[in-house]
Structures are given as structure tokens and as C-alpha cells.
């Protein structure tokens, strides 16, 4: 995935979670480390869909457990 797109996604996640970007590592686990709840997770998905103009299927959402997972999932989705 392009660094530019990664940066965009990181900005979206950082804004929704209100966590500064420098404290948001790619490996940090959304639910365990960042206290993300199901509503914030859905907000992240909706915002990524809108800003990057892609559709993330519902069954993919539970797999998005860290920024790294998001990058990997989107890579797969965009290859399709």
C-alpha cells in the first residue's frame, strides 16, 4: 500500500479515536490497547469508505483489529 494512503488512514483513525498520530503505532490493538468500542470501529470503517471511496464488506470489519490489519485488508480489497 502506498505510504500516502497509509497516512490518510492513520489520520482518520487518529481523529476518530482522539489519539495523537505519534502515539498510534501500526501494531496497537484497537480493542485491547486503544479502548475502541464497536461504535468507534464502525465510524472508522464508514469514514475510510467515504474518504477513500471504497466499500468494506461487513464480514471484513471484525478482522480490522489494528492499523496493520486495516492496511492488509484494504490491500486485498483493492486488488480485487
Amino acid at each position, binding site marked *: 500500500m502506498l505510504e500516502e494512503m497509509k497516512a490518510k488512514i492513520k489520520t482518520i483513525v487518529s481523529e476518530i479515536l482522539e489519539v495523537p498520530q505519534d502515539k498510534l503505532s501500526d501494531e496497537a490493538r484497537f480493542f485491547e490497547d486503544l479502548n475502541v468500542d*464497536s461504535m468507534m470501529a*464502525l*465510524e472508522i*470503517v464508514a469514514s475510510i469508505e467515504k474518504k477513500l471511496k471504497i466499500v468494506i464488506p461487513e464480514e471484513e*470489519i471484525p478482522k480490522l483489529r489494528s492499523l496493520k490489519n486495516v492496511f492488509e485488508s484494504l490491500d486485498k480489497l483493492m486488488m480485487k
Partner: protein
Amino acid sequence: MNDIWSIEKIQEILPQRYPFLFIDKVLEVNKEQGKVVCIKNFTINDYFFAGHFPANPVTPGVIIIEALAQASIILYAALKPEIAARHPDYYLGKVEVKFLKPVKPGDQLVLEVKKEKAMANAGIVKAMAKVNNNIVAEGTIVFGVKEKQ
């Protein structure tokens, strides 16, 4: 597919009751488009007008948000009937709403809610409230759904 709901059917889905039930009727349920249209009528007999405000009755904005949130539950129940049938707890997560015009006694509030995302444990909707076809409030509501233990 359109489906008009009576107050009895509304009460099967919404856990809210007097004095906090803010849907009188469901005019339209469109599962394909992920949209519902509901109605709430305000009258000078509504209890909050006595205090909000004496000599200047205006519907509190939070009550309009609550009405939109209740319409969101109706939409969720239409989209996920198997989950709604188990009467989960619904709770508000985040609300971003602009208020454009005051709503007065005698006004009929038309509540239009459209799905952005609906999952087993959360949902996001675009919500709009109109009076006489003029938008009085609009925004986005994020809510959670949790099955009772």
C-alpha cells in the same frame, strides 16, 4: 416495500414509554433503501413546554435528537429483525446534529432516517427532521446495540 406501523407495533420494538416515547406513527419502512419515515406530533400539552420555556414554548433540541434516535431503532429493527426481536439495549454513541429552525407546539415532526452502516452491535445513520417540508434538524447518529445478559 412500504409498511405502515401502528403505535402497538412501535411499542413492540421501542423500549421507551410515556413520557419518553417520541414516535407516534411509522409512515414508511423501506428495507431495500435502508430508510424509515416516522412522525411525532407536538402539542401544547407536552410536559416539557411548561418549562421550556414559560410563555415561549419551544421543543428542546435534545427531544428532537431523541425522536431521531428512536426512529433509528425502528430502522435497525427493520434491517435486523432477528436481533430486534430479542429486545437488546440500544444506546447512543455519538451525535452530530445541526438545528435549523425552532419546533413549536402544533408542529408535526417528520423524521427521516437512512442507513449508513448497520452491524450486529452498532449502527450509523443519517437523520433528518422536517416540519412542513422544511428541514429543522439534520445530522449523523452513531449508536450501539447490546444483547441483554
